[in-house]
């Protein structure tokens, strides 16, 4: 069979225009993936600076650095920026780079729309950040934007609402693109149940996004009309109900937290088999577990609001439904550990982050089960225990998976190996400082320290000081991550096409770095018992 058609010199007229116009007008999935990833990294640092300001204020009791009003704006914007600017765009960046290469498609289904999805993000981010400068400052109602606070604040809240609208539109367009690409553009021979798990998790995530982002858009539209046009959706005096907002918000919000973790599951499911040199223990159980988690995510939203005064029957229902999610999640965790069992493991940086992910995400999952118990939750609601819980699943969960994925695919993307020693140092610094920062917050929460407060009682002082030291360590460790990436882009040992010796998805059959246009003619893929093979490429060797 003929060698796979890699565009070379004869295709130079297909190359990108140079300069800034390349990035503004690009419809290339690799360029857009790169844009998403850099955007999310900048947002990650922005949200990180806010986090460090928060931790500086909390370094000791009393008010030292910021005004309480500004502190509230910081906690709100830190949450919004990390969720909508940091974690989500990072995963969309991975999707853009990887999905076409992993399923043997030439590009995303709607390349022009793909460009729009990305370029909506910077204006939204700008709206969020500049809202600090308007009279009244940025939104300060918490990232959840609960009324009545959110119906009372100044124009910073309106800017936040518009930003959420724009981010929602971007996410919806991105998901439409991803679903269509995966369903319609797979290479011949790649059936649904042969797709790499990263592709599977993103397919399910994209459906979740399509289902809930419009609901969030509706919720903030209601806020906006309540604020500006005299409607009374959430205004008690006009017959509305503020608790209604919480129901609508969390109908979006709970699937949203799975939107932020399912692609992470996908990355880890690619990394673990590669470095354990064994196929994934149970592929189809992973697919079904992911789908179960996604479906269950729609019937657990009220566990965020156990204290609003709902009937005991409802509390019991949401408690048991929440605990049920532990079952498919455990299927995943056992799958990863069983994959590692008796594997020929090596511990390069992606594997270290993947194992760190499993270890710490499981801790975050356990504290989630604790919080699912109604009587416990009523005590721990809005304490630092909750803060510790969701940072264990979002930082050592989603973010660690993003680190793992970055190190895993960086050699493929750049054509150069990253500096393994520095990357491992980045892992150990992140691992240690993450736990220094957030483990003690469990104790603070159990002792009763409320979240979103700029000042606290004396008995919380020591743990807060430890947590703040850890936060600064964690924050500065990420500069090392930036350095490793820049160093890898600028040069380093040449990466082979295969990069990792038992990685077996389609992208590894492409050169490193891959050509600007890959898989213009779909590859023929076939599968032996364990591995996906690009038949054409194998034969051409």
């Amino acid at each position, binding site marked *: 069979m003929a060698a796979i058609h890699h565009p070379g010199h004869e295709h130079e007229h297909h190359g990108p225009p140079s300069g800034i116009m390349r990035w503004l007008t690009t419809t290339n999935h690799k360029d857009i993936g790169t844009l998403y990833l850099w955007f999310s990294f900048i947002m990650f640092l922005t949200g990180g600076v806010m986090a460090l300001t928060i931790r500086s204020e909390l370094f000791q009791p009393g008010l030292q650095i910021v005004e309480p009003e500004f502190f509230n704006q910081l906690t709100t914007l830190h949450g919004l920026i990390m969720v909508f600017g940091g974690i989500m765009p990072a995963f969309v960046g991975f999707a853009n780079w990887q999905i076409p290469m992993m399923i043997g498609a030439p590009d995303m*289904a*709607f390349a022009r729309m793909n460009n729009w999805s990305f370029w909506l993000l910077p204006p939204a981010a700008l709206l969020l950040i500049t809202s600090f400068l308007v009279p009244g400052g940025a939104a300060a109602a918490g990232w959840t934007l609960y009324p009545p606070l959110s119906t009372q604040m100044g124009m910073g809240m309106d800017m936040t609402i518009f930003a959420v609208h724009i981010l929602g539109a971007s996410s*919806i367009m991105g*998901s*439409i693109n991803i*679903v*269509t690409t995966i*369903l*319609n*553009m797979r290479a011949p021979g790649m059936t649904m149940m042969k797709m790499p798990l990263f592709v599977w998790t993103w397919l399910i995530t994209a459906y979740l996004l*399509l*289902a*809930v*982002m*419009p*609901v*969030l*858009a*509706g*919720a903030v539209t*209601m806020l906006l009309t309540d604020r500006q046009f*005299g409607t*009374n*959706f959430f205004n*008690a*005096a*006009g*017959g509305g*109900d503020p*608790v*209604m907002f919480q*129901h*609508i918000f969390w*109908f979006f919000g709970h699937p949203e937290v799975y939107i932020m973790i399912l692609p992470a599951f996908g990355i880890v499911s690619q990394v673990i088999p590669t470095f354990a040199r064994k196929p994934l223990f149970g592929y189809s159980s992973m697919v079904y577990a992911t789908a179960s988690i996604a479906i269950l995510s729609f019937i657990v939203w009220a566990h965020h609001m156990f204290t609003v*005064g*709902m*009937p005991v029957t409802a509390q019991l229902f949401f408690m048991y439904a929440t605990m049920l999610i532990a079952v498919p999640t455990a299927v995943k965790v056992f799958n990863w550990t069983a994959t590692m069992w008796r594997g020929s493991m090596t511990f390069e940086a992606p594997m270290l982050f993947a194992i760190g992910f499993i270890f710490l995400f499981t801790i975050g999952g356990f504290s989630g089960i604790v919080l699912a118990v109604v009587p416990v939750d009523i005590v721990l609601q809005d304490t630092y225990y909750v803060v510790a819980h969701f940072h264990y699943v979002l930082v050592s969960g989603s973010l660690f998976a993003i680190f793992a994925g970055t190190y895993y695919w960086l050699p493929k993307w750049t054509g150069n190996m990253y500096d393994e020693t520095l990357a491992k140092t980045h892992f150990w610094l992140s691992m240690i400082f993450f736990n220094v920062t957030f483990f003690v917050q469990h104790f603070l929460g159990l002792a009763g320290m409320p979240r979103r407060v700029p000042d606290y009682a004396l008995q919380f002082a020591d743990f807060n000081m430890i947590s703040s030291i850890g936060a600064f360590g964690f924050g500065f460790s990420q500069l090392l991550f930036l350095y490793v990436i820049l160093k890898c882009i600028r040069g380093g040992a040449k990466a082979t096409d295969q990069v990792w010796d038992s990685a077996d998805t389609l992208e590894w059959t492409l050169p490193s770095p891959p050509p600007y246009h890959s898989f213009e003619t779909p590859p023929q893929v076939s599968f032996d018992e364990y591995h996906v093979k690009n038949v054409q490429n194998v034969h051409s060797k």
Partner: protein
Amino acid sequence: MNAAQPNLVMLKKLLIVAMVMFAFGYAMIPFYKKICEVAGLNNLLQPDTLVEETQQVDTSRLLTVELDANTRGLPWQFKSLQSSVRMHPGELVEVMYEIKNNSNREITGQAIPSYAPQLVSQYLKKLECFCFSKQVLKPYEVRQMPVQFLIESGFPADIKTVTISYTFFELSSDFASTDVSGETGEI
């Protein structure tokens, strides 16, 4: 461009999903109201019915009920005629409130109750309240209105003082024509 055709079909389908979900967000509002109505939740603005006509009065202890009155964003004077009342659990009492319109325009207001501690709401039964309907006050009109309520005798003995608070809000003109408490509201 035949290859793009299935993609466009998919695009349309997924756009419809997104639009349906946007509408679903709005549909949750009447849906929840119906659920609350059916389940009897959140009926702050409807009179309670006593299950047992003869509530047992626990004469062995006394509760202090503090009466609080506030307005928000409307030029009314609103106060209770007693600042607090002493009562036995299970005993039906009536207290009086007074509102006065300090402006020269007709204003429609709605009172929203709030209880402290929160637990009281399970034991508080209100048979009559000015909050069950909107109040329309002509310029400088003064009105006295009763609240008839009891706190059931099962109320925990360790709580000696409870607060019942009302806040009057102005109803915007488009809402003033409808009755916010729903069909069951009565004067």
